[in-house]
């Protein structure tokens, strides 16, 4: 009887730890956003976990036409100031996406197989959305938002 009680308690403990671990993993899933703007200091980051926003980003990416003219290695310029926004995916909602970088209208999309595609976001909608979210999350202030908007 005593052994059975101990066994039951241990079983519950293991189950509890497993459930907590699953919850932790679930909480971390989402889109990690890095505003690439600094040179010396670490860049501002935040995470998008809101499924409706993730779906919106997915839909936005899905509608973008390919940018066949772009022939660089990356849309992120090796320059001082705003260099683009890196979005890294750990969400199940965009299963084929590894990451993307958006710099104004140019989008560099990388899938899970590390294959890159360059897309065009003529209206800057994706960048504007991410900047707005960064402001809401307090990752950047208005000065940096203005810099992003005005930087060419």
């Amino acid at each position, binding site marked *: 009887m005593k052994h059975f009680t101990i066994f039951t308690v241990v079983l519950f403990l293991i189950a509890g730890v497993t459930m907590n671990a699953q919850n932790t993993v679930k909480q971390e899933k989402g889109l990690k956003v890095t505003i*690439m*703007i*600094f*040179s*010396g*200091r670490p860049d501002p980051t935040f995470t998008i976990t809101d499924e409706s926003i993730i779906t919106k980003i997915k839909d936005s990416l899905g509608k973008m036409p390919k940018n066949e003219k772009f022939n660089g290695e*990356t849309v992120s310029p*090796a320059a*001082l100031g705003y260099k683009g926004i890196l979005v890294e995916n750990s969400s199940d909602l965009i299963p084929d996406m590894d990451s993307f970088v958006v710099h104004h209208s140019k989008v560099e999309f990388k899938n899970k197989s590390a294959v890159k595609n360059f897309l065009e976001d003529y209206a800057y909608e994706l960048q504007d959305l991410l900047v707005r979210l960064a402001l809401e999350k307090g990752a950047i202030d208005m000065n*940096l938002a203005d810099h992003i908007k005005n930087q060419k």
Partner: protein
Amino acid sequence: MSLKKVIFVISLLGLLFIGSSLEAYDVTYRAYVGGAWQAWVSDGQTAGTIGSRLEAVQITLNSSYLPVDVEYRTYVSGSGWQAWVSSGATSGIIGQNKQLGGIEIRLLNAAAGNTIKYRAYDSKDGWLPWVTNGQTAGYATKAKKIQAIEIKYFQTIICSTPPYYPDYWNDRSIIQKNNNCYNYSNNKRTDTFAQPGRAGGDMYSSIDCIEVTNGAIADGLIPTTASEIPPPGKTKIAMVIWPDTDYHWYRQDSDGYWTHKPGQTAATNLDNSGNIITNPETADRGGYTIFCGYFLTCSDVNQGEGYANIR
């Protein structure tokens, strides 16, 4: 609390102590005297107590530059030379009232010119001469006993200026993402997005020339001027500020031109206008409008292998 638990807690505290004490020194060591380990000492300090029995030692090396390690063995009175050990392991025999009669220490993976120097205190003759790199300190005979040791470690660093070779930094992976302008200008890969003053214990608290300069000086960088020709081997680097927002560093490569690595993007020899940088003071620096000054760093011809104390 059981004895086993007490020993476990003490061991954990010991590990914490070792971990924190290794940061500041190159060679750190301690002696087992009178049934207990003494406190860790470093860089030429005395380990052991003159007049007491020295039964064992532990030695460890903390090199921020190279994968150097230290190997050592002791002569135990009545048992002879013990096996070579390394990286803080115990050499000697504890708990059998046996004393050390000699010690030999040598470096592993050390570049030419690096030296480990040590001496032993003989119970009758006092401090014996300094010996180096595997030589015997102490008489290593049954009749003679040593009671204390002192160890020093000398690194010979030869500074040199790197060429412009961005491929090393622009791997589009770990190196590029985790090394910033401060890493690049000092030519030292740390994968930590190094910050001025973090290693030197005086990290900037605001983004201005004075604060970031103080951090850089704490890391060992030496302020200089535009006109001063760097001493042989030293590399000139320059720091600029985006007011209240960020700082940025450039480096002068072996061809005399200036290059930089803006954050986690690629290293480049171009400024914001796409021009080769011949002078960081006049280059297009975007919002980094304030030019703070020049510094000297100890770099290396190999990319990522500079010697500056940055983290």
